[in-house]
């Protein structure tokens, strides 16, 4: 997955224009349930609910979802297997109850990951960060984060182009050459990032920038009804997860 891939999926997806509050409540609400409910069966319910919403309602492609999930799974496999063994005075052995602990961990981590991927595939990161303003994050920090989001794609494109150019001239054909070439890309990127920052300063000053970065938002508002329905569903999952 390249940097722009997930963002593109979120920006072009079917749920792009659904109210932010709805998506945030679904993703974050279930995420909280995923890590607080007993993994069995709570996390299983969360996983089922999230996958249903992600694939059934938001219509995220299963193939893309799997490609995104590959990275966290790469962590989860060694991270759960390690619980199977113990280090005792007599050396390495099977941990008693390790299998169960690992299984519960896998259930919880998977449930939480489905929530994260739901958010990532339905909501552009910029929308989520902009929403942090309402949670009291200082506007300067939010603005820096949003500008960073803009710069990330521009710089990533430049870095990719530089790497392509170096590969074309065989700059990555051995490990030593790779190291030198990558160092050169990074070194070339930093002054370019700073130059971009200065040009943006000129560009925004020309638009009457006074030091604050206010924009009008034209986003859909969530209805209390839909938020209530989401909360009700989450309450049901919570109750089921605790009782069963």
């Amino acid at each position, binding site marked *: 997955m390249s940097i722009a891939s997930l963002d593109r999926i979120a920006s072009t997806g079917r749920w792009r224009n659904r109210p932010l509050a709805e998506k945030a409540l679904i993703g974050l609400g279930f*995420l909280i349930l995923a890590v*607080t409910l007993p993994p069995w069966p709570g996390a299983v319910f969360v996983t089922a609910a999230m996958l249903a919403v992600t694939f059934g309602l938001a219509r995220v492609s299963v193939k893309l979802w799997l490609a995104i999930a590959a990275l966290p799974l790469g962590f989860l496999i060694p991270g759960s297997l390690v619980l199977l063994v*113990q280090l005792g005075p007599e050396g390495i052995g099977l941990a008693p109850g390790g299998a169960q602990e690992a299984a519960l961990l896998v259930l919880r981590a998977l449930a939480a990951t489905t929530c994260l991927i739901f958010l990532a595939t339905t909501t552009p990161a910029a929308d989520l960060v902009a929403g942090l303003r309402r949670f009291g994050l200082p506007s300067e*920090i939010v603005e820096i984060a949003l500008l*960073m989001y803009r710069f990330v794609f521009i710089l990533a494109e430049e870095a990719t182009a530089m790497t392509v150019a170096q590969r074309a001239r065989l700059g990555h054909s051995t490990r030593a050459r790779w190291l030198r070439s990558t160092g050169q890309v990074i070194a070339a990127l*930093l002054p370019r990032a*700073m130059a971009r920052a200065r*040009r943006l300063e000129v560009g925004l000053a020309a638009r009457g920038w006074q030091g604050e970065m206010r924009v009008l938002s034209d986003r859909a508002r969530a209805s209390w009804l839909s938020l209530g329905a989401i909360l009700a569903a989450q309450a049901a999952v919570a109750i089921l997860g605790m009782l069963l």
Partner: protein
Amino acid sequence: MHIMEGYLPASHAIGWYAVSAPFFVAGALKIRKIVAERPEARMTLAASGAFAFVLSALKIPSVTGSCSHPTGTGLGAIIFGPSVMAVLGVIVLLFQALLLAHGGLTTLGANAFSMAIVGPWVAWGIWKLGRGVGLSVAFSVFFAAMLGDLATYVTTALQLALAYPDPASGFIGAAVKFGSIFAFTQVPLAIVEGLLTVIVMDALAGKVPDDQKLRILAGEAR
């Protein structure tokens, strides 16, 4: 090494948020002050953060054939200073979670502690120490980046061990287990990152100084 979403129990997730919060708040206050004095610092800080993000997305073909990535921790700390890096690092981690599903939201506090706080402070400390005792720039940069990197990995391993102590040997045993999976394997990568950072700092030293900025501004002279 980012701890994945949902890997830590809720109590640990909250605990690490609490540990990281003061560093983030201190950095945020500092940034507010900088931005109040120079509004345009927003752009520079954002570009720095974006640079750190893109850096972390560059893949390193590691010795074992699998791919890892530089953390950029050392480079960032040396150039921008550790307190600002705490904030930029947290934003970078947030974007990594949302744009790459790398790391997570519940584990953001823990990842921020290892990658945006411990790593930069260690790197910055070693850099200052190295320069202080008269080590050359290249060696100071190398050790700062390498040890900053290693400190990050070791912190991650300790965080995991704290969450999942070994049934027989407790925290120590778990630290060895997680260390052998998530930290010791990273030693060659830390060395690579050290070397890479030296190359970058070296190349940067030969780059355009600040007084060229207007030339770049004017576009034509680019």
